[in-house]
C-alpha cells in the first residue's frame, strides 16, 4: 500500500533562498553553449537544403576542401548507416536510422534546412565560403507540408518503405501515416446514446517552436587516442553521449560530455543536431571544432512541436454529466515519424472522470523539420480541442464552466482513458481555488471576456544519480547530472539542507559531466526536481548514516545508539553514554582519520512520479476594429505536490502560461507554396514580448505526492497545457465568436467578427 505523507514541518523546503548559480548569471560569468573557447579551435558550419523535398544526386566537396583554411568536410558518408529499429534511449524510443538521416541527409533531403554537409575551417568567413563552394546536385521532388494533405491519396511520399503500423490488416502500400494509435475505455457509442447534448468540432493548430533564446551550440575535441570531449548546451548530456556514440560508432566510455549552462530548452534540447557533426569534424581535423546555429537554422532545422488537426465529440446529460467522449488527433511528425500523438491522445480527456472514451491518433510525416519535444508534448494540442468543447458545452447548458468541470473532474480513483487509476490528484482543489479567486469574481470591461481551462501532465521519474560530498570543513558539494534550466540546483541544495538541517548556502552544487557521475536521464518530463531531488535526499540520508557511524566508532558505542537530530549527531539516549553531540562539521574534520571521506551517492531509477493538474483563467480584450486580442489578466493555478522553492514554481507556471499565450495568439510556422519556411526569425515568429502581457498571477496548490519524500510532483510541463483553450474561451466571450483554429491572430479574428457582424 502507498504510504501517505505526513504533513511535515520544513525548515528549508518552501522558503525562497537566492539560487546558488545566481550571481554568475547576473554578472555575465555563467558559461553557456557558445561561451567556451579552446586553443586552436575551428569553426564548423552546416550546408543545408534549399529544397523542401529533393533527391541528392551528387555532392562535390572538392572545391571547398581546396580553399585555404578549410580543414575538413563531412557528409552522410562519414556516418555509418543505421538499421531501422526502435531503441529505448533518451526521449522515449528512437530510431537511429531516422536520427542519423536527420543530422545528415542521406539519399534525400526531406525539408528546407535539412543538413547536407558540414565543414570545419579556420574562421567563420572561410567556413561560409566553403559552404558556397560545395556543389550539390538535387532532383527536386514534389513536397507536402500540411498533415491533412499528407494523408491524402496521391500525396508525395517521403519514405517509400513507410507502412502504417497499428492498422489490421497492415496496409500494403507506403504512405505518410507512420502509425495509428487507439485508446478505448467503455463504449463511446453507448455513451452518446445517453447524451442530451452532443457537441462535435474540428480544431487546427500550427507548428510552434520552443523558442529558447540560446541557439544550439557545442564545442567538440577528439583526440588521436579515440577519446573525445564535448561541451554542449543540452537537457541531457548522457543522452547526447549515447546518441553520438551510436551515430559515430564510438565507445560510450571514451566520450566525455559536459553540459554548459543551458539557455532554455523546453524539450527542444533533448536531441542531437550539431553534436555528432562537430565530433566527426574534430576527429578528422584533430582540432577542437565549435559549432553554433544561427537563429534561422534553429527555426528551420531544429524541432518545433507538431501542428495538427483535432476532432472532438462529447456527449453530456442536461445536468452536465459527460456520458461519452471521442477524439481523432492527427499530428505532424515532421520529416521522420515520432510526433507526440501518443501522449496527445492520453492527455486528451485526462481532466475528466469518464466511462466511455475513444481516442484515435495518427502520426504523419511531411516536409517539415522533425518535431522535438516541447513542454508537455502533444498535451496542449489535444487539450485545446477538448477544453474548447467543454467550454462550449457549458455555454450551451448555461452552466458555469467551473461547475461543469467540477461535476466531471478526475480525482483519486478515476480511471484515466489510458487505463490506470489516478492516485491523489489536485484538479478539484485547483478548480475550487479558481472559483474562490479574486480574478474569477472580478468585473470585466467592454470588449472583454473571461475563459478558463484545465490541463494535465503525467510527469516522469527515471534514471538519476547524485553525489553529495562532505568536505573537510563541513561544507558540502553536490553533484547532479540533470541540467539545471530553471533553478534546479537551488531546489536540490534546499532538499539536502532540509535533510542535513544546515544552512543551504553551505552546499555548493554543480552539474557534473558524464565521466564524473553515473547515468542520468535528461531534464525533461518535469522530472529533475522530482528525481534528482529524490536522489539528493537519499544521498543526504547516506551522509547522515555514515556520519553517525563515524560518531559511533569515536564514541565506542553501537551505530544504533547514535541519532541525528536538529543537525547534531547525538547518543540515542541515556544508555548510549554521555558524549558531546557532534555536528557534521565536527565529523568532517575527522573523517579522513576515521575511514576516509564521507560521500553520499545515490544512483536510482526514480519511480513514483505523480501527475500535476492545473487550471488557468484568462481575460482578454478584443479590438473590434482590428481583431487584435490583448490578454488583460491571467491566473495560473496548479498542483505542485510540494513547492520546494516557490519562486521557481511560480516561474514555471508563468513561463508556461506565456508560451501558451504565444501559441494561442501569434506563434506559427508559416510556409510558402514552395515548401519553405517564411518566418525563420524572431521578427516574424512572434513570441510574446514584455509589453504584450499583464502580470501572471499564480496560485500554488499542494496535494502531496505520497511517493516523494517531500510530496513533490513535477510542475514544468502542465502550465503550457491550459492556455490555448482558456484564451479561446475568453476570446469567445470578448468577441462573440468562437474560434477553432490557432493562432487567433488579428486577420483571422477580424474576418470572423466581420462575418458574424461583430466587427
Amino acid at each position, binding site marked *: 500500500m502507498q504510504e501517505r505523507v505526513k504533513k511535515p514541518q520544513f525548515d528549508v523546503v518552501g522558503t525562497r533562498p537566492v539560487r546558488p548559480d545566481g550571481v554568475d548569471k547576473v554578472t555575465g560569468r555563467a558559461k553557456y553553449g557558445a561561451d567556451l573557447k579552446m586553443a586552436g579551435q575551428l569553426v564548423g558550419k552546416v550546408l543545408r537544403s534549399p529544397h523542401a523535398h529533393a533527391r541528392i544526386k551528387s555532392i562535390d566537396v572538392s572545391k571547398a576542401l581546396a580553399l585555404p583554411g578549410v580543414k575538413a568536410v563531412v557528409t552522410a558518408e562519414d556516418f555509418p548507416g543505421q538499421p531501422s529499429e526502435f531503441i529505448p534511449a533518451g526521449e522515449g524510443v528512437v530510431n537511429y536510422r531516422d536520427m542519423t538521416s536527420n543530422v545528415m541527409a542521406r539519399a534525400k533531403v526531406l525539408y528546407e534546412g535539412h543538413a547536407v554537409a558540414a565543414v570545419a575551417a579556420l574562421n567563420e568567413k572561410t567556413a561560409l565560403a566553403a559552404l558556397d563552394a560545395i556543389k550539390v546536385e538535387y532532383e527536386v521532388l514534389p513536397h507536402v507540408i500540411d498533415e491533412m494533405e499528407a494523408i491524402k491519396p496521391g500525396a508525395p511520399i517521403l519514405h517509400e518503405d513507410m507502412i502504417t503500423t497499428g492498422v489490421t490488416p497492415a496496409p500494403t502500400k507506403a504512405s505518410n501515416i507512420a502509425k495509428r494509435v487507439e485508446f478505448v475505455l467503455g463504449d463511446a457509442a453507448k455513451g452518446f446514446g445517453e447524451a442530451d447534448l452532443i457537441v462535435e468540432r474540428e480544431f487546427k493548430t500550427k507548428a510552434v517552436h520552443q523558442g529558447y533564446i540560446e541557439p544550439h551550440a557545442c564545442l567538440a575535441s577528439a583526440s588521436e587516442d579515440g577519446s573525445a570531449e564535448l561541451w554542449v548546451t543540452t537537457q541531457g548530456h548522457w543522452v547526447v553521449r549515447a546518441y553520438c556514440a551510436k551515430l559515430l560508432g564510438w565507445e560510450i566510455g571514451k566520450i566525455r560530455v559536459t553540459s554548459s549552462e543551458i539557455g532554455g530548452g523546453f524539450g527542444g534540447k533533448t536531441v542531437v543536431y550539431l553534436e555528432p557533426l562537430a565530433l566527426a569534424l574534430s576527429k578528422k581535423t584533430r582540432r577542437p571544432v565549435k559549432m553554433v546555429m544561427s537563429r534561422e537554422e534553429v527555426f528551420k532545422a531544429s524541432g518545433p512541436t507538431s501542428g495538427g488537426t483535432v476532432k472532438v465529440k462529447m456527449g453530456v446529460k442536461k445536468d452536465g454529466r459527460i456520458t461519452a467522449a471521442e477524439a481523432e488527433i492527427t499530428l505532424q511528425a515532421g520529416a521522420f515519424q515520432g510526433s507526440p500523438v501518443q501522449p496527445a491522445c492520453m492527455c486528451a480527456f485526462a481532466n475528466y472522470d469518464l466511462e466511455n472514451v475513444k481516442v484515435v491518433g495518427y502520426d504523419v510525416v511531411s516536409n517539415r523539420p522533425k518535431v522535438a519535444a516541447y513542454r508537455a508534448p502533444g498535451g496542449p494540442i489535444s487539450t485545446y480541442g477538448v477544453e474548447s468543447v467543454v467550454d462550449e458545452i457549458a455555454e450551451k447548458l448555461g452552466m458555469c464552466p467551473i461547475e461543469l468541470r467540477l461535476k466531471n473532474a478526475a480525482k483519486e480513483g478515476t480511471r484515466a482513458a489510458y487505463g490506470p487509476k489516478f492516485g491523489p490528484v489536485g484538479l478539484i482543489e485547483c478548480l475550487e481555488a479558481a472559483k474562490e479567486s479574486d480574478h474569477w469574481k472580478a468585473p470585466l470591461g467592454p470588449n472583454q471576456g473571461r475563459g478558463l481551462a484545465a490541463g494535465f501532465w503525467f510527469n516522469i521519474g527515471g534514471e538519476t544519480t547524485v553525489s553529495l560530498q562532505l568536505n573537510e570543513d563541513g561544507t558540502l558539494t553536490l553533484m547532479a547530472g540533470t541540467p539545471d534550466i530553471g533553478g534546479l540546483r537551488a531546489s536540490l541544495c534546499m532538499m539536502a539542507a532540509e535533510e542535513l538541517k544546515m544552512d543551504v548556502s553551505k552546499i555548493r552544487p554543480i552539474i557534473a559531466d558524464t565521466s564524473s557521475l553515473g547515468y542520468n536521464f535528461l531534464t525533461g518530463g518535469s522530472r529533475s526536481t522530482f528525481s534528482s531531488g529524490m536522489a539528493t535526499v537519499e544521498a543526504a540520508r547516506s551522509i547522515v548514516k555514515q556520519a553517525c557511524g563515524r560518531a559511533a566508532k569515536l564514541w565506542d558505542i553501537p551505530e544504533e545508539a547514535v541519532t541525528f537530530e536538529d543537525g547534531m549527531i547525538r547518543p540515542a539516549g541515556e544508555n548510549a553514554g554521555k558524549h558531546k553531540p557532534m555536528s557534521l562539521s565536527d565529523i568532517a574534520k575527522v573523517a579522513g582519520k576515521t575511514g576516509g571521506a564521507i560521500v553520499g551517492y545515490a544512483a536510482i531509477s526514480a519511480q513514483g512520479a505523480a501527475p500535476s493538474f492545473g487550471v488557468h483563467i484568462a481575460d482578454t480584450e478584443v479590438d473590434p476594429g*482590428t481583431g487584435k486580442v490583448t490578454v488583460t489578466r491571467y491566473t495560473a493555478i496548479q498542483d505542485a505536490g510540494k513547492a520546494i522553492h516557490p519562486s521557481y514554481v511560480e516561474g514555471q507556471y508563468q513561463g508556461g502560461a506565456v508560451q501558451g499565450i504565444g501559441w494561442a495568439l*501569434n506563434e506559427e510556422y508559416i510556409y510558402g507554396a514552395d515548401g519553405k519556411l517564411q518566418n525563420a526569425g524572431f*521578427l516574424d515568429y*512572434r513570441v510574446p514580448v514584455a*509589453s504584450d502581457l499583464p502580470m501572471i498571477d499564480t496560485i500554488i496548490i499542494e496535494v502531496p505526492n505520497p511517493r516523494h519524500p517531500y510530496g513533490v510532483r513535477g510542475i514544468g510541463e502542465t502550465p503550457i497545457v491550459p492556455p490555448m483553450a482558456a484564451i479561446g474561451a475568453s476570446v469567445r466571450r470578448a468577441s462573440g465568436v468562437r474560434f477553432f483554429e490557432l493562432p487567433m491572430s*488579428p*486577420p483571422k479574428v477580424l*474576418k470572423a467578427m*466581420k462575418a458574424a457582424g461583430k*466587427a
Partner: protein
Amino acid sequence: MRYEKPTTVEAATALLAGQGARVLAGGTDLLVQIRSRILNPDVVVDIKGIDTTRKITKDTSGYTIGAAVTGAELKEHPTLSKDWPGLVEGANLIGSTQVQGRASLGGNLCNGSPAADSVPAMIAAGAVATIAGPKGTRTLPVEDIMLAPRKLALTAGEFIVSFKIPARPAHGGDAYLRFIPRTEMDIAVVGCGVALALDAGGTCTAARVALGAVAARPLLVEDGAKALIGTKVDDAALAKLEAAAKAACKPIDDKRGTVEFRIDVAGTLAKRVAKIALERARKV
C-alpha cells in the same frame, strides 16, 4: 568588405559613386542584411562622421533633421515632440529601445521597405529630403523617394543628408499609428500618418494622409486629405476618410497580413489617427 567613415559630404558621395557601396547610418537594417548574406557590399560608407547627418536644427521655417539622427535622439529633442509628435512616434516605433538607439530616419526610408514606420509620418508632415550627390545637392519630397520595394529615386553616389520638416501650422497636429500583431517589435502590417491644420473656427484647412505597408511604396492619399479639408473632422468626414484610405490600398497577401485585413485596418487606423491629430491640433 571595406569600412569607410568620411567626414565630408563630398568624400561620402565619391565613395558611394563606386561599385557595391552602401550607406551605413544606424545599421539596424544594413547589418542584418549583411549578416544574413542578402547583401554583400564591397564598401560600407558610415555617414555618421558627417556633422550635418547627426544634427537637429530649428529655425522659423521648421526643422532640419540629419539623416542619421536616431529615434531616441528625436524623442529627446526639447521641442520636436511638441511640434511633430506623430513624426517622433513613428520613428520610435521602429524596433526596440535598443534599435531606437541606432535607427535613423534616413536609414528607415532608404532601406526601401513599404512598411517603414517613420515614412508615412514624414510624408504626412510634408518632409522633404536633402540629397547630396556627385552633381551637387537637390531636394525631393519624401513620398517621391521610394519607388518600389528596395528601389529608390536616388542615383549612384547620392545619399540623403537631412530632412526638412516645415514649421508646424498655428493649429496643426499630426499623429501616426501602425497595426502590428504584438505591441512591439513587429513590422507594420498597416501604418498611417495624418497631419492636419485647423482655422480658428476649427475647420480643417490643410491635411495630409499617408499610408504604409498597403502598397509597393508608402502612399500619399490625396482623397483622404480631401475628405478632411473644409470639414470639422466630424464623423461624416472620418467615414469619407476611411473610405478613401481603403480605396487607396493596393496590398498583398503575405505572412504578416491578408489583402482584406490590410484594407480594413487601413480604414480603422486612418480614422483613429485623424482623431488623434485633430485633438492635438485643437490643443495648440
